[in-house]
């Protein structure tokens, strides 16, 4: 049965099945956008933590680190309550939309980006910032130098977050609703097709998901290897 499922899966992939590629495209769109937003917010948090000496820095970092392990279903549930018609943001009518899925993934990815990037920056950041300041940089230029210097480690934070959002199913299922041609992404489709017993499509999606993750990680890895010396 497994062999049959695999052969059908490859037929679907090679035959450029319309519904399959629709799901793949939406997955990439939602996760890509979420990753972009999470990267901006995560890096901004790192900059703020590095730029301002705050007595709350330690507790903030601890909270961020705790949030890296947020259960996706809990995020989905919380966001569902907030976005539902009777919730505080119900008027936005975002529930069961790709936008809600992006928000859920951003919430899950931001702590990972912030946590890993902050760890990278705080390990060498102080000495690099001092160098920039010694040579006449402004505080902003010094922070830019720190971020640029830690670019390969920062990339690692994005890779980690990418893994999280691409593999995520609980939250997007709750707030997206797995609506065909609208909010169905690879992970929710795999869960549904497995439930329905349509293993061919589920396996085909699984292969694509893994292949995509592999290619993107390979790209990041080759970029990191090129320049990482620390």
């Amino acid at each position, binding site marked *: 049965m497994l062999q049959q499922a695999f052969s059908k899966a490859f037929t679907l992939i090679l035959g450029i099945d319309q519904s399959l590629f629709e799901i793949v495209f939406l997955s990439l769109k939602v996760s890509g956008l979420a990753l972009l937003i999470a990267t901006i917010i995560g890096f901004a948090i790192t900059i703020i933590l590095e730029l301002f000496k705050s007595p709350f820095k330690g507790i903030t970092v601890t909270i961020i680190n705790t949030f890296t392990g947020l259960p996706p279903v809990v995020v989905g549930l919380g966001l569902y309550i907030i976005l539902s018609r009777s919730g505080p943001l119900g008027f936005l009518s975002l529930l069961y939309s790709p936008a809600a899925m992006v928000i859920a993934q951003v919430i899950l990815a931001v702590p990972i980006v912030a946590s890993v990037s902050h760890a990278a920056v705080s390990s060498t950041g102080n000495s690099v910032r*001092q160098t920039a300041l010694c*040579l006449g940089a402004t505080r902003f230029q010094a922070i830019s130098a720190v971020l640029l*210097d830690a670019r390969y480690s920062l990339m690692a934070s994005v890779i980690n977050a990418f893994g999280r959002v691409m593999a995520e199913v609980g939250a997007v299922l709750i707030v997206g609703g797995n609506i065909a041609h609208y909010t169905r992404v690879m992970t929710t489709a795999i869960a549904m097709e497995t439930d329905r017993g349509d293993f061919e499509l589920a396996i085909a999606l699984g292969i694509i998901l893994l292949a995509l993750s592999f290619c993107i990680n390979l790209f990041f890895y080759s970029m990191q290897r090129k320049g990482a*010396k620390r």
Partner: protein
Amino acid sequence: MIQIHADVKHHYEGKSVVDVDASYESGKLYAILGPNGSGKSTLLRILSFIEEPDTGGVDFVESGRPLIKDIQLKHRIVMVPDRRGLFNDTVLENVQYGLKVRKISKSERSVIAEETLETVGLLDKQKVNALVLSNGEAQRLCLAMALAVSPEIILLDEPTASLDPYNAAMVEDIIKDMKSRVQLVLLVTHNMFQAERLSDIVTFMYEGRVIETSETRKFFKSPESIHAREFLKGETVY
């Protein structure tokens, strides 16, 4: 001709206090000498704008006129960076950083960077990542990073610490050469022999205060303070 007047009080390392009232005139190489923990490095960081003193301030005077502490003045003063703070990039890129900050054009930057690398003997390493340099090479790169921006005042903090005698001598040669390129050099060191070899004037610090300032020859021949005498004899002053 720039003069620096520092009248500052600053807490450092938790409880110690730097309480300094000192002046430095251009055309000289000052050695700020003293045992570990005497506040030398803290004073240097205050003079280079990296640290703000708790009270008091540093005045820069040029031809009798006080200078405004703006980015232009900041660009005339450079502290030689620490070896641990080199950028994860090529040697050439590291040397160009200060020039980039000063918005020097790309073509001019590479010419200046190459010239400076040649003076410190690192031209052949320009394409190498700075983080794989040996200690001696890394220290020479740090000096090149400071020299590339043609500063008027250079501040050095223990530039030969943990270097072997050969590399220390190379670094000292570069510092000697600085006198002809830079108006004022402040060298923090706890190495009295180095202070004697390089400086024109010695400022001796102890427990956060400047205890004695005198011409190098005079300082080493007949130090006025008990602490300086004990320090020169190698007796404990901690």
